[in-house]
């Protein structure tokens, strides 16, 4: 009897072990179901634009869908008027499982607070309101839509928004990244994962798949926690009041500096972080200073110094009036013919002098009038800077060749401390020529001197903050 009981117990414990193992492995291999809808706007755009869409559609067609991943696609018929009813029907069909995570990708020409060229902000808001489904992620695969006014208007449509602060390449996002979503259960984690994949796809150092689209500019990406926008915007009202109270001279100076140094390709949009930093510089009131610092920190900017994220190199000449002969990528690029053809090299270091150098080629040369200088010699695709010195006569080599290699071309900033109003979960950019890309802190805003359209005036952000007046 005892033996029988023991046997039974052993059997039972074995069964329990199997059950436990089954449960554990089920958890390990459990996948989260994701429904992803991709929408391509731009029916009236030209053939080139349509070709870009087709290329993106081919990428999507290579994604392996499964029980855990459904990816649907909607494209406006080229040349036809947009049909919002069809679009809404498509979205309703795409998001049917109440238990699934839901992501929407909208591809098209973006324009900051205006929204998309073919789907204005108010239309997007209405569409998503009519959809009556709270989305986990919306990815605006478009330009300038990491824009505070736009984000605030659509804050209730999804938990997280992924968007670009600067103009985005028409190559858009690397759609194959969507295939990994079932391995991620958390929407914030998934958003950051997708944003990282996006930025890496434009990185030369990471052999990104979309570097073909890049020659001089940055790719930028931001992940926004929409529930925090309300608090941030509440605090931001102070900024609007502060700017309005500035003496006209200070207002003009602030506007000029922002336009010149911190504007996007669309000049009416400027970096929000730098707006706050520059405003703080003008402020003479310690309480205001503290309030602005609080807002700046909510954008994950711990200190202004840390915004200098691109390499600066101090190069010292061995002797006065020495001539630096230089090239790029281990003397593979930047020889005279390439230098004269591609303005990128001139933007890095301008010269009109060329001398005979490595690889039996002629190379740009720069006389050092001072003993040393600082350079930011990197750019998209330019990952090493090579140089040596000749004497003042240009005949005698007076130094060995040096090659300086950069170790990263992507700058990432993640939220370090969760606080009320810290809406920016993650932001990143790829470096552009020199240190130009250091203006991106994640979100843009319309320059305060702009004249608003009626639509802008009526945006919730503007009504709450009083940013632009009619």
């Amino acid at each position: 009897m005892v033996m029988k009981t023991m046997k039974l117990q052993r059997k039972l414990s074995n069964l329990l072990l199997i059950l436990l193992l089954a449960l554990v492995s089920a958890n390990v291999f459990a996948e989260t179901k994701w429904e992803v809808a991709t929408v391509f706007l731009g029916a009236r755009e030209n053939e080139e634009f349509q070709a870009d869409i087709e290329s993106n559609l081919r990428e999507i067609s290579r994604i392996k869908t499964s029980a855990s991943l459904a990816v649907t696609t909607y494209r406006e018929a080229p040349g036809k008027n947009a049909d919002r009813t069809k679009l809404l029907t498509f979205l309703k069909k795409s998001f049917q499982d109440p238990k699934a995570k839901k992501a929407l990708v909208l591809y098209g020409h973006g324009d900051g607070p205006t929204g998309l060229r073919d789907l204005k902000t108010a239309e997007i808001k209405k569409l998503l309101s009519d959809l009556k489904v709270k989305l986990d992620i919306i990815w605006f695969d478009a330009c300038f839509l990491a824009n505070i006014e736009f984000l605030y208007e659509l804050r209730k449509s999804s938990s997280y928004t992924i968007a670009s602060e600067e103009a985005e390449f028409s190559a858009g996002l690397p759609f194959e990244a969507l295939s990994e979503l079932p391995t991620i259960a958390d929407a914030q984690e998934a958003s950051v994962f997708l944003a990282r994949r996006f930025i890496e796809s434009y990185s030369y150092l990471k052999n990104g798949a979309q570097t073909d689209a890049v020659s001089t500019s940055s790719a930028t990406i931001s992940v926004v926690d929409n529930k925090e926008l309300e608090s941030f915007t509440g605090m931001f009202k102070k900024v609007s009041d502060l700017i309005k109270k500035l003496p006209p001279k200070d207002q003009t100076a602030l506007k000029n500096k922002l336009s010149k140094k911190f504007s996007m390709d669309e000049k009416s949009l400027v970096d929000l972080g730098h707006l706050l930093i520059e405003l703080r510089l003008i402020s003479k009131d310690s309480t205001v200073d503290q309030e602005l610092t609080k807002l700046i920190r909510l954008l994950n900017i711990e200190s202004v110094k840390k915004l200098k994220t691109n390499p600066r190199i101090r190069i010292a000449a061995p002797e006065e009036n020495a001539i630096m002969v230089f090239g790029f990528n281990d003397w593979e690029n930047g020889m005279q013919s390439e230098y004269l053809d591609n303005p990128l090299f001139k933007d890095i270091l301008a010269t009109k002098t060329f001398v005979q150098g490595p690889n039996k080629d002629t190379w740009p040369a720069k006389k050092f009038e001072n003993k040393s200088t600082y350079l930011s010699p990197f750019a998209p695709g330019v990952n090493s800077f090579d140089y040596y010195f000749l004497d003042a006569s240009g005949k005698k080599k007076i130094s060995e060749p040096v090659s300086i290699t950069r170790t990263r071309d992507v700058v990432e900033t993640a939220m370090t401390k969760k606080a009320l109003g810290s809406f920016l979960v993650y932001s990143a950019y790829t470096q552009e020529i020199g240190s130009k890309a250091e203006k991106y802190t994640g979100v843009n805003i319309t320059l305060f001197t702009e004249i608003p359209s009626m639509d802008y005036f009526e945006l919730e952000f503007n009504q709450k903050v009083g940013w632009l007046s009619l």
Partner: protein
Amino acid sequence: MFNKLLLVTSASMVLMSSSFAATMQRKNEKKLYVGSNSTEAKLTYIGVVEYDSTKTPSEKTMRNVIESQVEHTIGPMSAAQYTAVPKGDHVISDVKIQSKTGSTFKIEYTYTGTVVLENGPKTTYDIILAKNPAKIYEASFVGDVSPCTDEHYQSEGDFWYFWNPNQAGCKLKKDKDYIIAKAKVERFENTTKSYPEYHNLPDENGNITIHMMFGMDDSAKGRNPLTSGDINAHIYRDFRDYLIENGYTGKKWTAAEINKIAKTKDGAAPYVETFTKGMISYRFFFGPSAIDEDSLAFHWFYKDAIENASVMLYGGHSGLGGHLDLAAIEQNLGEEIKFNKKRYQIFFFDSCTSYKYYNTQYFERKMTAKDPKGSKKLDIFTNGLATYFHVMPESNRAIAIAFEKALGYAQAGNGFVSYQSLAKQIDSDNLFGINGDEDNEAPKKIK
């Protein structure tokens, strides 16, 4: 020696480091962005124009010849690498005869005017000037066709608008047929705001009447805007729906009501409706508006709008200025259009390059001794460059809705919408012109 290098951030130094895949071919980046890429600019250049005559030309003649040459800058400017469009506010000064060879006079002048100029040129801009505007059209022909202009618009009357010596097949030669003047460019931002005189819009009964004149794109399409496939019928329906959604009550006009205004007709009756909410009343007209179509009914309603409306908004083809030419319309009607010189009005012309066509002739009709420019009682809002008709209705709708909202703000005392904000609504940036606003009264709440 190399230790003097100081690396500040994330670069590392190596002696002759490993190589990179070096593919540095120039690439044109393509962005998901189509933005406003132009600003207003002041353009100044010294022009020279030829004039053939046995007599020394008078100042007036010289100015006419110059104006003809200036008009001929439109075609090349709109086809240039950096497109530009004159705003029509230019001043011609320092007019003088530079030289005379045989019977050809060379007249020199200085041009100063505002243009909308695509981003790019910052200091100078090449202006193509027809050497002799009276001869350029004829000189452009190769056989029976002029390859220098639009293949569909081959007439001399359309030439100034479409010609471009750089067009494929064009045989016009630099220095022989045209010259290039280096214009000085001074770009500026226009942030000055001006406002409609909202408080002066109501008539003597306190009503604000807005006449929406929808000119058909294609008069062969259905004449009922509620069912027509005409492009402008879509905007008719859109704006109609908007008004109804916002509490306006609509009423379709009967044939008898239409006939009271359109005393004569040369085609099917137009479709007319009125939408009213409180003191604001919209009249919608839909029908052909081209001068060479059965547009008599349109002309009667247009006359009525000009004479009686607080606001008139025309959306349709401009016909290079011909469709709304007052003299041509009056000739068609056999009646004068009597402008109300005592009443403040706003006219919106939402058609191709309208700021060029619909300014002076309208202001002239409002002139009085006290208002020699005719601008005190009239503001004219003109819109942009030549544009595709399918794009225009969107701006027409946007401006109409924005203005309806602006009236609501002014009525409720919730603020006044500037002309510049209205223009922003149609995404036109600087591609708009407001004339007559310079002497406007500060806006007040509509009583």
